[in-house]
């Protein structure tokens, strides 16, 4: 039940048979989400991909996220993992704190929060700005570029590498590994396992290196040295490194890509941002709401009825933050991008105890990437809307997105 072929086939009724990897859903999931949300079953169920529930209303998604004792984070990937994945040398390595449940979740999260506070991430702003300018230098003279591959994809991986103290020259390799886990690997278990092994082997070496050569002001060294405060193990530190790479790259890259894709088609929004720079903070929140990249999963702990749905222990729930963020019960004109939207209680970063730890970094990267782009390339448009390619499932965003300027 884990390959594209086994799960393909036409979807007649999305409320009983949605397919999150259907090419049309991957490209534009919002009409299907709308159809489910306004149907008799706003919490849909499908047997594809090992079976899952799919809540689409804001209140339901938030309620499930808050009930972390019943709806656990034992597995947060949107499809079941291949049996082989549980074995091998790294069987016990998870991705704390995202895969942790209380009580351990508390310290798993507590330990990494300080590096992500607004005042801590501010030190990456200038470096990110320089990076964005260098990327644009490589293509600005050509009058055409791929806003996905040449730009959006290049930024978060280098910021995270800097944060983890690992070589930024390995950016392409890191990107390949992360796509292997979060994109290609979701429908190809072999790729997923191989990519996971590459990530963990790499960080295993980094841990050994930091033990021998501790560094100043270095996240991995600091984590290894936190044993006096918390029961830190190598498995924990490996898991955190794994998560930072996996959670910090595809997600932010998708947010930057979707925002550029949107701006390429909306000259009036480009103009608004040029003329009213004070609008940036709300504009960033609005772009995150409208094009929320991330869907997570929960595993039901014990048989329970939720909004009339008979959920069984072990069932998977897809936490569609993208669907929640377009619920008209919560947002006026949810399908419109309103850059100065005042009332915006979006959940692009989730809700409850697992709310994104990296959100301040993600916001900074998104803002700087868009600001630098608009400074250098104020006017641009899609070369061919039909040729834009998309990734979906766990993380939604454009991959190839050619623009002309």
């Amino acid at each position, binding site marked *: 039940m884990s390959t594209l072929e086994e799960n393909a086939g036409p979807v007649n009724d999305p409320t009983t048979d949605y397919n999150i990897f259907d090419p049309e859903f991957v490209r534009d999931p919002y009409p299907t989400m709308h159809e489910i949300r306004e149907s008799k079953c706003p919490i849909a169920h499908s047997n594809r991909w090992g079976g899952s529930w799919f809540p689409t209303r804001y209140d339901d998604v*938030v309620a499930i996220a808050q009930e972390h004792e019943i709806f656990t984070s034992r597995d947060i990937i949107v499809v079941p993992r291949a049996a082989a994945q549980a074995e091998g040398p790294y069987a016990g390595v998870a991705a704390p704190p995202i895969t942790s449940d209380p009580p351990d979740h508390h310290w798993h999260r*507590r330990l990494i*929060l*300080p590096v*992500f*506070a*607004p*005042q*801590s991430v501010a030190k990456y702003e200038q470096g990110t700005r320089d990076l964005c300018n260098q990327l644009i230098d490589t293509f600005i003279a050509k009058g055409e570029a791929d806003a996905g591959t040449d730009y959006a994809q290049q930024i978060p991986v280098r910021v995270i590498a800097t944060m983890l103290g690992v070589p930024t020259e390995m950016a392409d390799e890191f990107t390949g590994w992360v796509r292997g886990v979060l994109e290609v690997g979701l429908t190809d278990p072999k790729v997923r396992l191989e990519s996971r092994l590459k990530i963990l082997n790499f960080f295993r070496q980094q841990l050994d290196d930091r033990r021998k050569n501790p560094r100043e002001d270095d996240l991995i060294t600091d984590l290894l040295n936190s044993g006096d405060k918390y029961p830190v193990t190598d498995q924990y530190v490996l898991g955190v490194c794994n998560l930072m790479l996996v959670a910090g790259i595809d997600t932010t890259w998708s947010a930057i890509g979707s925002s550029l894709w949107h701006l390429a088609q909306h000259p009036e929004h480009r103009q608004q941002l040029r003329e009213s720079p004070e609008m940036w*903070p*709300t504009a960033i*929140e609005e772009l995150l709401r409208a094009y929320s990249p991330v869907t997570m999963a929960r595993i039901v702990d014990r048989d329970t009825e939720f909004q009339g749905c008979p959920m069984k222990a072990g069932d998977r729930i897809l936490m569609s933050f993208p669907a929640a963020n377009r619920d008209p019960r919560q947002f006026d004109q949810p399908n419109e991008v309103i850059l100065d939207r*005042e*009332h*915006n*209680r*979006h*959940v692009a*970063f989730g*809700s*409850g*105890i697992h*709310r*994104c730890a990296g*959100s*301040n970094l993600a916001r900074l990267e998104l803002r700087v990437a868009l600001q630098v782009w608009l400074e250098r390339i104020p006017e641009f448009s899609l070369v061919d809307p039909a040729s834009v390619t998309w990734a979906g499932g766990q993380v939604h965003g454009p991959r190839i997105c050619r623009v002309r300027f």
Partner: protein
Amino acid sequence: MRVKVDADSCQGQQMCSIAAPEIFGSDELGHATVLIEGDLPSELHAKARRAQANCPEDAIIIEE
């Protein structure tokens, strides 16, 4: 009007400081702090309400 943050509910995503940077700041973990002790000046009341409405954790308490 006075504002408080319920530390048990706050998950530290700073939607409050985006809506009302004059009123909310961040501690070293990224959780919200209130920058104005005592009564808020009336010109900040609307912003305080907006911050409260935008907090996805219902962590902001307003006393009037």
